[in-house]
């Protein structure tokens, strides 16, 4: 009886993982700590909109002319929505899971980006990097020369000014129709 038990114990061996002494075994597809690459981020806020628990937030400070991206790991549910919506691949989930901290402040990460001013009225309206990215996309889409310059001029104007610029054009179209 005892012999049988000992044999069974030897057959099964040790089940316990050696985790804190050796690195933990991570399965492929494990969703761990989202890693943010500030150089790739364009502060477009797609992640902040997608984030279900609002762990990712974007706030603009118009006095300083910056837009701040921030993450609070204490609220993150590791769903990967941010990685999926990120147009530039700036945020990616890593297998990193050792996130415990003694001080809550260590759960926060922040990145500040410059806001661009409207060329007509001077109001800060969008992250400068985002405008640069949109422009490079239009270039990739095949626009060049005069068309690209026109698009660039259009992009550097705030939505309010765009509307104001459109009104005379619309009126003109209206009159032509009559």
């Amino acid at each position, binding site marked *: 009886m005892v012999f049988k038990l000992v044999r069974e114990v030897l057959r099964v061996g040790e089940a316990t993982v050696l985790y804190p002494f050796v690195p933990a075994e991570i399965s492929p597809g494990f969703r761990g700590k989202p890693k943010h690459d500030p150089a790739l981020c364009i502060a477009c806020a797609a992640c902040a909109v997608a984030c279900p628990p609002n762990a990712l937030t974007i706030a603009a400070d118009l006095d300083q002319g910056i837009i701040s991206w921030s993450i609070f790991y*204490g609220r993150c549910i590791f769903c990967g929505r941010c990685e999926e919506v990120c147009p530039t691949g700036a945020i990616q989930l890593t297998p990193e899971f050792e*996130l*415990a901290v003694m001080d809550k402040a260590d759960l926060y990460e922040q990145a500040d980006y410059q806001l661009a001013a409207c060329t007509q009225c001077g109001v800060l309206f969008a992250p400068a990097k985002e405008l640069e990215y949109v422009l490079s996309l239009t270039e990739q889409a095949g626009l060049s020369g005069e068309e690209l310059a026109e698009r660039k001029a259009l992009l550097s104007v705030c939505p309010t000014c765009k509307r104001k610029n459109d009104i005379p054009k619309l009126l003109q179209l209206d009159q032509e129709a009559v």
Partner: protein
Amino acid sequence: MAPDYTKDTLLGASRYTIHVDEETSRLKGTLLKDIRRSVFVYRVDCGGCNGCEIEIFAAITPIFDAERFGIKVVSSPRHADILLYTGSMTRSMRVPALRAYHAAPDPKVCVAYGACGCSGGIFHDAYCVWGGADQIVPIDAYIPGCPPTPSATIYGFAMALGLLKQKLKTSHHMQQEDEHIHPRHPEIPLDLRIDVERESRRMAGYWHGKKIADAFLDLIQPADPQVEQHIQEHLRQQDDPRLTEIFARLQEIYRAHPKGE
């Protein structure tokens, strides 16, 4: 004796706050630094979904075996050294949370466990949610995760007891002058990229869809005549019939797309 906090928290508008006196915090420091015996953990569920509880129990199974470090889950706060607060701290659970806190003998360490315990998690802005254990009791360590894996649980305890070092540090990045951004896959036509990404997400879902589309776009180089061979090689390596099917659909899109003209 525990103070009469029930009146204050249940009926009054003012919030009951706990003050940890100097003597207690000194004792707590000693408990954290040189504890020379097992630590007894009492689990306080303050309105969680039970996911965290499942992971805590997974951490004390023979596979992860937290008890080899002397971490033992007990069934009464009166035996506890560590109070483990899970759940987003709902209105009706804050008094039991306080009762557990006062029932545990000093010095005690409070740990917020899981996204909900740390901050309220996905429920942080729901009605009747106080948003994290630190709104009610003084918290010494935070273990984020939704839920934290058993490994993360063991790491959190080891870190709280000073056996392992904290890895996460806060950071603040300021935009640099030379930061410039370029679109990904610049050699691939924009409309082809959009078609591939859309189809891949439609077939594989939100997270894997992007990963598969990226893998596919990495493989196709418009000038490369051996694109099909590269794709076949990739599929052979992955050996996944689901991926093969999605790639076949993406290849159809790629072939139908006009090239170079």
